[in-house]
């Protein structure tokens, strides 16, 4: 059968050397950005839901008594909007401090305050100041911490980083589109006379366009594979390095299977974009010929 590729000798066109590399780079950067955005998004969502739905009531060590703690817990249980109340055992409270004070200090009997965690019914709001005033009737120096004060700035920052990552992702995508458009166009410029000739010989538009399209597909496929592989290696490497720290306060550094699949959208998208752009650019050029 007639080999479609032989009419248009792309392989001698400079642009074909470049397209795989630009696609590879775009896919590489795009995948990493997307992964970063997903990780940050995961973390922020996590903080957001665990922290906005939660408050901690603290009784300073010098006022601490099992009775008072019990009373506080009952009062909280009766509060509208509170879904669950949990008194945190001292051991657990201590464990929270280990990273900050060192095991030596904490382990050797550092007194810790009484802590009560409450979970709030999703959607309902509890004003921490009002709550604290009410609880102070039971224990004068009780403190209500909604964790928001110092985390909200962090969340804002992370949300911005997430937006930035997605914006850069969009930029990279448009650069990839641009690169493909350009490469195809410059291929067209070099081959304009060939295209015109084939058109004159009675070749149908689809026949000519498909040659460019298949070519773009092959080039983008090569580039996409390289880029995606490189990105995967980097991500696995990073996951491996970050493993040791996962348990601390940093967001977990691993992606779900669903997210790995989502990441595949980046190379797939690049390849589809390359193919469609090539087709459209050629068809549009052909449509201008009578």
């Amino acid at each position, binding site marked *: *059968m*007639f*080999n479609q590729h*032989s*009419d248009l*000798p792309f392989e*001698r066109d400079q642009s074909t050397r470049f397209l795989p590399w630009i696609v590879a780079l775009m896919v590489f950067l795009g995948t990493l950005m997307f992964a970063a955005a997903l990780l940050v998004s995961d973390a922020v969502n996590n903080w957001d839901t665990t922290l906005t739905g939660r408050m901690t009531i603290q009784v300073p060590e010098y006022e601490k008594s099992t009775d008072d703690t019990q009373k506080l817990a009952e009062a909280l249980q009766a509060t509208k909007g509170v879904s669950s109340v949990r008194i945190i055992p001292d051991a657990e409270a201590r464990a929270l401090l280990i990273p900050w004070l060192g095991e030596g200090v904490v382990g050797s009997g550092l007194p810790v305050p009484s802590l009560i965690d409450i979970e709030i019914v999703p959607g309902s709001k509890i004003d921490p100041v009002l709550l604290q005033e009410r609880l102070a009737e039971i224990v004068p120096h009780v403190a209500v911490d909604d964790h928001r004060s110092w985390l909200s700035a962090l969340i804002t920052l992370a949300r911005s980083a997430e937006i930035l990552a997605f914006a850069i992702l969009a930029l990279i995508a448009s650069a990839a589109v641009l690169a493909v458009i350009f490469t195809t166009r410059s291929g067209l410029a070099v081959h304009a*006379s*060939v295209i*015109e*000739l*084939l*058109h*004159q*010989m*009675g*070749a*149908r538009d689809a*026949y000519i366009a498909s040659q460019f399209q298949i070519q773009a597909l092959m080039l983008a496929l090569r580039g996409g594979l390289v880029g995606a592989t490189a990105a995967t290696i980097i991500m696995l490497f990073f996951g491996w390095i970050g493993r040791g720290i996962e348990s601390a306060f940093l967001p977990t550094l691993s992606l779900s299977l669903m997210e790995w699949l989502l990441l595949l959208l980046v190379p797939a998208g690049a390849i589809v974009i390359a193919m469609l752009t090539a087709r459209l650019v050629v068809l549009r050029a052909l449509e201008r*010929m*009578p």
Partner: protein
Amino acid sequence: MLRFENVGMRYGVGPEVLRDVSFALAPGSFHFLTGSSGAGKTTLLKLMYLALRPTRGLVHVFGQDSSMTPRTELPDLRQKIGVVFQDFRLINHLTAVENVALPLRVGGAKHVDVDSHVRELLSWVGLGERLDARPSTLSGGQQQRVAIARAVINRPRLLLADEPTGNVDDRIAVRLMHLFEELNKTGTTVVIATHNNALVEKFGYPILNLADGELTIRGKLDSKGAS
């Protein structure tokens, strides 16, 4: 076969290159197209091979009004037209053989059938030694002969040649003319634009002459040559 009715043609906002051109060519006829440089010969041929649309008037090719024919049917018409371009338009990345085979491939021919046929024709026009050369490594006249071979390879029903002998000597020119005549004998309508008066006189076919945008048809000059 080919009919022009009151065809006018201008490029953009320029002056009219062709004015009120009307004529009809019978199937199987053979015509020269003459006129001084810039008279509009190439323009007239472009209208014939459907690369231009007339600014006014009607162009009928194979009995179809070119401006009324839907775009999807034009490729079929074009496949029946062989064109020798004034500037050759060979594909530099392909060999001579591949260039000549192109119309067959566009027409959907299989590889095996094509090759020997193409080589034979190229040998006939004197390029047997340079079959696999790229056009850029061919001499001017050799390129022109590749272009001619490409135009006739699929035995088109209409052959339009624009100055096909401008870069070859008289001996080869006559040989190429014989090729066109051969094709003409099998029913192909042939129009050859040329400045070569010696050739026009020698072969003595009727002449379409362009001057000041108007076309006049003259019968055979006193024919000294073959035909």
